[in-house]
């Protein structure tokens, strides 16, 4: 068990290392490079002096090490547009994104898994077909378009829910916040929900076909007991791994969702930064989010090894 954790930890560090190289290579390869930062009115002599000061004349490996050691300490430089440290901008925006992504993930789990179970239990019934159809649609509908449709229906036509922001200025009560959260949560959850439904369904179908389920049936157990006591435990193990794999896509969806609904999170920060070509911000966000994803994948792996006793026997 200890060796397994160490091995996974080692892999995570390597993956993070590769990401840092890719990101650094991107800065170096970009037309203009980090020199983009400089004021165009500077004379060549000033420019040279600044390059020296910024360490741009160092050999590339030295630059990389400097950049990484700063990044490890949470220093991603300053925003070009806002003239503030990138890390400050990110930490300001993280809570809103966690709120939204967390709500989305929760919605996907509490509806996606039961829907998948119902579909698997009544495979090929009308319910199964309906759920599969909804899942297929959920995967094909672009999040931003779903958002526009929801706004047209619930904000424009019915006037039930607000179409933008995290709270009404001057209000901010719990009810107000929840009202603002509903539509963005539906949008960010859509894809994960559909994916989770599908995945739970196919995983359960696989398990329900196993010999030990047939044995349970011949023992005369009720379908309910078979499903809950025998099939569920094994059927949900792969679903846990799936949850880990869904996180990058979920966070990516935050860019779209937050932009459409004016939600003040990291996704919107990234979209704005991309629009203004504020690349220190967007690179900082990419690395911070990658790190979050890697940690969450590591935790999923650990959870997986705790739930599934077979893992410990393997390497």
């Amino acid at each position: 068990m200890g060796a397994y954790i160490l091995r996974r930890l080692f892999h995570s560090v390597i993956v993070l290392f590769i990401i840092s190289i890719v990101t650094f290579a991107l800065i170096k390869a970009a037309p203009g490079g980090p020199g983009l930062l400089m004021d165009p009115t500077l004379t060549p002599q000033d420019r040279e002096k600044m390059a020296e000061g910024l360490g741009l004349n160092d050999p590339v490996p030295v630059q990389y090490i400097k950049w990484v050691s700063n990044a490890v300490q949470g220093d991603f430089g300053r925003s070009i547009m806002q003239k503030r440290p990138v890390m400050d901008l990110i930490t300001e925006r993280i809570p809103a994104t966690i709120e939204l992504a967390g709500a989305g993930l929760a919605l996907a789990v509490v509806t996606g898994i039961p829907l998948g179970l119902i579909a698997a239990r009544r495979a090929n019934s009308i319910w199964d077909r309906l759920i599969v159809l909804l899942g297929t649609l959920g995967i094909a509908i672009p999040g931003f378009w779903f958002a526009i449709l929801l706004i047209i229906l619930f904000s424009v036509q019915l006037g039930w829910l607000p179409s933008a922001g995290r709270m009404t200025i001057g209000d901010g009560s719990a009810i107000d916040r929840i009202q603002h959260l509903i539509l963005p949560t539906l949008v960010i959850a859509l894809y994960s929900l559909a994916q989770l439904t599908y995945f739970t369904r196919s995983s359960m179908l696989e398990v329900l076909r196993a010999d030990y389920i047939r044995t349970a049936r011949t023992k005369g157990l009720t379908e309910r007991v078979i499903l809950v006591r025998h099939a569920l435990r094994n059927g949900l193990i792969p679903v846990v791994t799936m949850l880990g794999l869904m996180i990058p896509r979920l966070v990516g969806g935050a860019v779209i969702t937050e932009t459409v609904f004016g939600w003040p999170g990291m996704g919107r920060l990234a979209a704005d930064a991309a629009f203004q070509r504020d690349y220190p911000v967007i690179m900082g966000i990419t690395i911070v989010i990658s790190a979050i994803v890697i940690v969450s994948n590591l935790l999923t792996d650990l959870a997986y090894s705790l739930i599934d006793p077979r893992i410990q026997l393997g390497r």
Partner: protein
Amino acid sequence: MNVAESQAEGTRANLLVRVPVYRSPLADFWMRFKTNRFAVVSAAFLIFIHIVSLLAPWIAPYTPERIDLNNPLVRFSSDYILGTDENGRDVFSRLLFGGRVSLIVGLAAVAISIIVGTPLGAIAGYAAGWADAVIMRITDAFLAIPTFFLLLTILTLFGNSLTNIVLVIGLTSWMAVARIVRGEVLKTKNEEFVTAARVMGASATRIVVRHVLPQAIPSIIVSATLGVAFAILTESSLSFLGLGIQPPLPSWGNMLTASQYYVWSAPRLAVYPGVLIVLTVLAYNTLGNALRDVLDPRLRGR
């Protein structure tokens, strides 16, 4: 077969040599494929939408950039069958040309992901050892980066031309192909026909290209079909944000950008491009899943 039938068979057998029914692989494929009605409908729709988009310059009544400031936000008229947008541009023409851009981006991006993913997967699977370890860690790393942020980073640094968008979507979606090819290569490389080729002195490159990779083609086709759907969704999301295809060049994604400001007065502007994206993505997904069922021999007979 009952007794009478088998007797009849017996007498006929004197005249005819019975041969097992043979169908060409293509006929066999079609036999299996056509049983899935959804897949046939999807394929027909895709053929239609590709042809129509390809012929956009001949079908469209106007150029997509033509502005008619006297007729903005027309609902529909004999001049503009689907109405006009906020600049008085013909929505029908823009849908046709927009489809052209969206489909080209989807197909080209997938082509790139195959060109990058296939050799990486083949090398990892066939060479094994440290090459495998290095390639798979790189694949893991790309899977761990939330791709959308990486896309934004690259487009910010390098600019969002059509070529860059295609390249960037392709270069961030090769991982699935690499993994699938690696899996197929691992499965095939110890088959007897591969060993035979090796014994005959074929080089590693020749073995992989001539004997191992052809076995992976069905899986690559399936992955590519699903990949087009994903690439179209990605392009439309980027263009919607204003970071993808730049107006006045239309794409289904960027036609929706402006539409969000007219949800109060002209919600239909948001409907047409969205429906086309959903139908196209749905059709590619359905087709991909159907192809997996037809092409994957392991699933046959289920």
